[in-house]
C-alpha cells in the first residue's frame, strides 16, 4: 500500500493531480491515499519533490 509521510508532505497537491486513478485527495489540508482505489503504480512516489509518498508491504 501507499502511505504519505505527513512530516515530509508540504501539501502542494502534485501527487493528487497526477494520480492516474484519482485515489489521492486533500482532507483538512493533509494528503490522503485511498488504498481501495490505489493500484500502487508508484507515480506519486516518483513525482513528489520531497518524497513524501512511500510504498510499504502489507
Amino acid at each position, binding site marked *: 500500500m501507499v502511505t504519505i509521510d505527513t512530516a515530509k508532505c508540504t501539501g502542494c497537491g502534485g*501527487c493528487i493531480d497526477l494520480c492516474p486513478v484519482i485515489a489521492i485527495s486533500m482532507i483538512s489540508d493533509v494528503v490522503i491515499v485511498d488504498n481501495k482505489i490505489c493500484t500502487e503504480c508508484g507515480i506519486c512516489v516518483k513525482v513528489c*519533490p520531497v518524497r513524501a509518498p512511500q510504498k510499504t508491504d502489507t
Partner: protein
Amino acid sequence: MPKRYDAVVIGAGPAGLMAAKTLAENGFAVALLERKQSIARIRRADGGAIGINEYLYDRLVLFNAHHKKFCFPVDGFSVPYDGPYANIYGFQMYSPGKKRILFGDWEEAKRRGDEVRVGISISKEALLSGLLEDCRCGGVEVFPGINLTDIRKIRDSVLVNGDGQLFEGSFVIAADGVNSRTVRLLGLNTGRKFKGTYRYLTWMLKGAVPVDPGSFNFMVTEKGTYALYDTYEQGVYHVSAFNSDPAADLNESLHDLVYKDKTYAPWFAGCARTEIINCVSNILSPIEVPFKDNVLIIGDAAWIMEFSNMAALCNGWKAGNAVTLALMDRKYNKEGVKSYLEWWKNNFYSPYGRFEFGPMGGGGTILQSYLSSEELDYLASLIDKPLPATMNFFTLFNTLGSAYAELFPRIYDERPEVMDKLFALRNRFDEIGESIRRAGFPNL
C-alpha cells in the same frame, strides 16, 4: 438535493477568486469550491511576483501603493492589495563560474528605485486574503476543503460533486490550476500535447545572500539549474531547483548548491532554512476553446504552463463578466460566453499559445551535458552590457536569443568547438523534448 447557484467556481486561486468576486458584485449567487481548508495559505511553490509597468500578453499592470491597488488599464479593472511588497528590477543569469548576464542597469536601480522597477514581489497570501474577503462580503458562499470528484451536464446546468456534496450551477468556471482535475474529468486533456512533468523544490532561507536587491536570478552550475530571488520580506530568500526528469533528486541538487558548490555555497553561509515548498506542473499545450458542457476553463487550467498572477486575475475578471452576460441574456450555452472565448483566442491563444520555450526550460543538467563550466562562463562573459530590464519571459527569451545570434560570428571565430556544441544542442531540441515527454506522467 444539490444546492443551486447561478455559477459554481472551482479553485480559489487568483483566477477563481477574481471570477467569484466579479460575479457576486454583479449580483449573482456563487459557490466557490477549494480543496484546501486554509484558502489563502500558499502551499505550492510560487514566484510570488507580479510584473508591472510593462506589457505582458498585451496587458499592463500598474501598482498604486497609495490606493493599495493593482490597476489593469487595458481591461479596465483594479484589484485591492494592502500587503507588503518590494521592488523587482529584472533578471540576472549566472554561469557556473559566476559570470553574469544582466537584464537591467543595476546602478540605475539603486538610484532611481520605483521609477525603473519592472515588477514587485508580493505576499500572495495577502493578495488572496483580500480577494477572499471581497468574495465573502459580496455574498459568495465559500466551501473550503472540497475535492472535485465528478462533474457532468444535466439539461441546462452543471452538477458538481465535491466529496459527496452536490452543487448545481447554470455555469461552472474551472480555475483549478495547471494540473486541473476539471479539465481531465471533462476529457479535454486528451486533445492536448503533453510536454513533460516539471518538478520544483524551494528552500526558504533567512540570512544575507549577496545578490542585488530586487533581482530574480537564474543560476546554472555544474550540478544543476536554479532560481534565487529575494522576497517582500527583507533577508528572506527563495532558492529553487527544478528538473523535468522525475528521477532527479531535487533535495540533493539544492544541497549541492547551498552547501557544496565551491563558487556559490559561500553565498549561503549563515543562512537558516525556514521552510520547504514545492510543486509539480504538467506541461500541456493550451486549450483553443476552453469551454465544454457549460464549464468555462480559465487561468492555468487552460494554459501551457504556469501563467502569471496578472494573467490569472485578468482571466477571472473577464470570465466573471462573460458569465454575467450569459446569465442576463439567458443563453446557457457556448454562445452565452462568447465574449470570453473570443477574448481568450485573440489575446492569449492565438498570439502566445504556440510559443515554444524549448527543452532548456526543463532545468536540471540539460545545458551542462553539452557545455562545460568553462564554456558556459565564456558564453556568459560575451554579454558585457546589460540587456533591457524585463519581467516578461517572452521578451527575455527573444532578447537573449537575438543577443547570441549577433555573437555567433565572434564565437565561431574565437571558439569554433563551442559553436559546434551549440549547433549540436540546437539540432537535438526535438530529441531532448521527446525524452522529457517520455520521462513524464501525463494526467490525461
